[in-house]
């Protein structure tokens, strides 16, 4: 148990921030993201001896995050949540605040599967095959979900300049 704890602690210390960011981009809320990460890490701890030996822990945790997030999005109270209502964001450094809000709103309008596909593909940098494995669906589904998500985002964010801070 001591060895498991030491290895697990080392992994969490190195990857927690990345996992929180991944979860946040998938669900759009930091509190929910923390819940998802906690759930995923508890399951990772249970499976650690097998996971650590057979598969990269990141891939295992991502799959749990994806599944937990989609389950979460199916809950009745989640369904009734207004997607236009945006949580407060911390002060921004790279893009103008209104741009960040626009990105957040555009992401929130995507279906959960589309959002997950975009985050894994374009933020985490995974291949289509890896995204399909994480989402446990076929490659064709990932491609179609991603294409339509990109089209929607492009439509909503076309006015944004992806350049550093714009002074108001």
């Amino acid at each position, binding site marked *: 148990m001591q060895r498991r704890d030491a290895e697990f602690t080392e992994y969490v210390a190195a990857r927690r921030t990345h996992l929180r960011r991944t979860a946040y*981009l998938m669900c759009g809320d930091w509190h929910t993201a923390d819940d998802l990460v906690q759930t995923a890490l508890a399951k990772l701890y249970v499976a650690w001896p097998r996971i650590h030996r057979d598969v990269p822990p990141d891939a295992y945790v991502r799959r749990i995050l994806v599944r937990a997030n989609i389950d979460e999005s199916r809950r009745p109270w989640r369904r009734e949540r207004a997607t236009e209502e945006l949580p407060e964001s911390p002060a921004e450094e790279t893009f103008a605040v209104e741009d960040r809000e626009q990105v957040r709103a555009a992401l929130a309008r995507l279906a959960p599967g589309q959002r997950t596909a975009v985050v894994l593909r*374009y933020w985490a940098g995974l291949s289509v095959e890896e995204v399909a494995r994480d989402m446990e669906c076929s490659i064709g589904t990932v491609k179609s979900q991603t*294409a339509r998500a990109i089209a929607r985002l492009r439509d909503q964010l076309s006015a944004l300049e992806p350049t550093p801070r714009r002074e108001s």
Partner: protein
Amino acid sequence: MTEKNLHDLLNDLCADPPTSDQLPGDDIRRGRRLLRRRRVALGGTTLASVAVLAVGVTLAPDVLSADGGASDSGVTSTQQALSDGEILEGCAVADEQFRDATDPAKAGGGTDPIDDWRVEVSGLNDRGVTAVLVSPDRERYAFCGLDERGSEYGDYYRHGVDVVPPSFDVWVQYDRERCEPSDPESGRCLAWYAGGLAPAEVDRVTFRTPDGEVTEADVSNGYYVWTAESEGRVDETKPVWATFYDADDEQLARRNANAASGEGPVKQCSRTEGDDTIVWTVPEVQTCADGSEDSGSR
């Protein structure tokens, strides 16, 4: 918006996470708690199994005489059927996105909204509906997947009958998120779905999944949709055999509908129409649709 821009936008969005209130060791405590629960549950299951076995040995003759020994697993879906109107409404949203993202005219699907199209055939699974929609002139059709709320889920495309004509070519898709295992604690399952337009003589289409189960597609005027669930650890890369029958139950064709799952060899088909050359890809084991010509394997 380029891929890099999108990456930068997403990166910026999550660049400043709020401080986590997690203490060192919280994750390990939660993990240990879950581990203990799992062990207790496993022990409980084992004890229950022994008890059931013991009771079963004692009561087996009576039980068997009462119900013939058969136990129907009775997979009941909580899924409520969506009306045709709800299907059309959900698919219209998917169609709008599809027209934004691609050029449906290339596949002969046209660019007009699908408001006046009708649901030709639809099939239910645990968490959604798969449907084929047909235009009023029946010259174009769309394949549409929706979740249980009537929102787009999975694949959507629209074609012209003249560009993608009836054929035995079929591609199956799968999704583990789209089914409910009968044992939610330890079970795993996988939802399969497919659809298309078969030649006019086709009356019945069956699919055999890797677990050996054979299920029927819903067929209407050559259009068909198929959904099924496989329980347990199913290898999604294994063949899924689609068999096409005519009205006399004669087999017309048999195809591996899972040959294009991303691996496996494919070949190009092409057809010339006027000044245009239409090119598409099919699994190597399948034939190109009528009027097409193989341009070699790759």
